[in-house]
């Protein structure tokens, strides 16, 4: 462990509670409740596969019978042992020495999940994974690998959260996505932390010919500080990526979320869409970086931010870099408080000021940007409505 790594590890403990493996339905009530709040359900029949890790222990990993032979879900330690070739995917998109957090995850690695969708398999039910911290002040470093073989399709939900008794901790999550020719991966990550938790996801995706990667991120609960800037390399011809995020910053949260799209393939397309609400004393940075390296490539960045309190802040930082002629990059950003004329318009329809504000805020957190199937979409909508209703 380098002294630097020691410094980000700081006061966090590496002593985790041991959890025996156990089916989801037998988990303690409070753990189940928390996992449900991040989209992970105990009814395994509704999911094609499930991975659950608490602290440093793999508690559950299984593929539903109907999907055996189509997909695979394993903890990464076991997966690396079983498949020598997996080394070719390990720390390839994210570099171990990228920053102090990747170094930490490299030197002190606590599992994570390996998901593989076999060639041509179109998985109709979502796969789910849940990473939970149950020990106060713990450091958890997971490393995930997701491989979608050619022409496969899957939807993955990942929920990351803490036990209700946990207030502080450091979560580092390295994720490397490989979306091969003609494959499509929709990855929806839902975070629900606590006010003293620090979070550092470190993700990158490689998207090959005709492949599509949709990465959704939803964070609605307070967090001490959260910083991530995933990169998608649209290497293949006609490769596509969308990064969509819905952020709600409350309390003293400091949230710094960006996405970087590198357009390398002919006809590659990228999109970064975000909706951010900041209230109380929250600070939200919304970044986006579009890099056009191919003469026939196009990407767009859209950021909307809404401030609900004078103590809060939203800083939108869109960046466009075209390196060749023909790379079409564009952005639009709008940040502000709720427009008074809109509130008055709704009040002129008989809504109270509070009702008008809540209608506007609810509408602002537009789940349709995530492009999810109806059921999931309405689940997330419900979570958002609950959050905003409490806030207003």
């Amino acid at each position, binding site marked *: 462990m380098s002294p630097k790594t020691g410094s980000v590890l700081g006061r966090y403990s590496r002593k985790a509670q041991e959890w025996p493996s156990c089916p989801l339905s037998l988990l303690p009530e409070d753990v189940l409740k928390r996992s449900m709040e991040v989209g992970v359900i105990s009814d395994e029949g509704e999911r094609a596969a499930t991975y659950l890790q608490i602290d440093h222990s793999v508690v559950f990993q299984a593929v539903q019978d109907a999907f055996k032979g189509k997909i695979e879900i394993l903890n990464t330690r076991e997966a690396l042992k079983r498949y020598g070739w997996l080394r070719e995917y390990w720390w390839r998109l994210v570099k171990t020495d990228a920053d102090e957090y990747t170094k930490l995850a490299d030197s002190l690695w606590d599992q994570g999940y390996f998901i593989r969708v076999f060639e041509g398999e179109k998985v109709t039910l979502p796969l789910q994974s849940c990473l939970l911290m149950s020990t106060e002040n713990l450091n958890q470093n997971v490393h995930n690998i997701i491989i979608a073989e050619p022409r496969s399709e899957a939807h993955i939900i990942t929920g990351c959260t803490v036990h209700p008794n946990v207030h502080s901790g450091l979560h580092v999550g390295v994720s490397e996505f490989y979306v091969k020719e003609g494959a499509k991966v929709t990855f929806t990550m839902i975070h629900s932390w606590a006010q003293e938790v620090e979070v550092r996801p470190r993700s990158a995706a490689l998207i090959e010919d005709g492949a599509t990667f949709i990465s959704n991120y939803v964070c609605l609960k307070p967090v001490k500080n959260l910083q991530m800037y995933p990169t998608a390399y649209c290497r293949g011809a006609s490769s596509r990526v969308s990064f969509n995020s819905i952020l709600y910053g409350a309390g003293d949260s400091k949230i710094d979320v960006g996405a970087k799209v590198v357009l390398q393939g002919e006809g590659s397309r990228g999109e970064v869409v975000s909706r951010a609400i900041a209230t109380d004393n929250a600070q939200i940075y919304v970044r986006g970086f579009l890099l056009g390296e191919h003469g026939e490539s196009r990407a767009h960045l859209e950021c909307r931010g809404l401030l609900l309190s004078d103590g809060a802040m939203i800083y939108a930082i869109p960046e466009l870099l075209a390196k060749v002629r023909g790379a079409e990059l564009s952005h639009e950003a709008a940040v502000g408080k709720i427009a008074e004329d809109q509130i008055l318009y709704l009040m002129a329809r008989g809504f*109270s000021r509070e009702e008008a504000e809540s209608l506007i805020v609810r509408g602002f957190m537009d789940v349709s940007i995530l492009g999810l199937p109806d059921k999931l979409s309405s689940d997330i909508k419900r979570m958002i409505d609950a959050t905003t209703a409490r806030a207003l």
Partner: protein
Amino acid sequence: MDILTVEDLSVEVSGRTILRDINFSIPEGEVHVLFGPNGSGKSSLIKTILGFPGYKVLSGSIFFKGKEITDMPTDERVKLGMGVAFQNPPAVRGVKLGEILKGMMRNREEVEKRIGNILKELNFPTDFLTRDVNLGFSGGETKKSEILQVLAQDADLTILDEPDSGVDVENLQVIGAVLSRRLKGKSVLLVTHLGYILRYIDADMAHVLMDGTIACSGSALKILGQILKEGYSWCEKCPRVKGLRCEVFL
């Protein structure tokens, strides 16, 4: 009884007095028209009647159904029974027209039927209900959406700010017929420039707003005729502006 009475009303917006000594009242069941050149203060008067906070009442009072409402918040005035179709409503991203309509009323089943009927009468496609209100609506669509909302509300006083501006001939007929039928016997305050809508709605009385003040009041059709013939220059000559009685209309 008067449904609306405006007494000695003066109003300031961003430090500028835009309405001065306005006096008029609408007896229950009457239709009153508000004429006046662009920028004379018609929409501002409506927003003041509605209680928009930017429109600061310097002096005077407003009574609605015999109750003083001068300092009442907008939503309470609306709940008391006034409804308005705005001239230039703002787009509200994320808030669907259908959501507003549903929120506006309590009894859901009846409301859905009522909204369905008005939509049909207005020849307004139902998919507008699932669109963000006024976002990307064309001029005519905005008018229809405003009229739909105000008619769904079925207010005791319906205020229409230029329901006929920017509407094509066929849609004017559609809108006119719907308003004529649904507002029969109701109290209405109506702003129109060219008076097209008056082919469908019988007005009892008109007031002409000139530079923030009511220059004259009288028969709606006579005043309209005069405006169409001579523009507002006849009104500038009007002796009432000089503090005398208007000979022609009163």
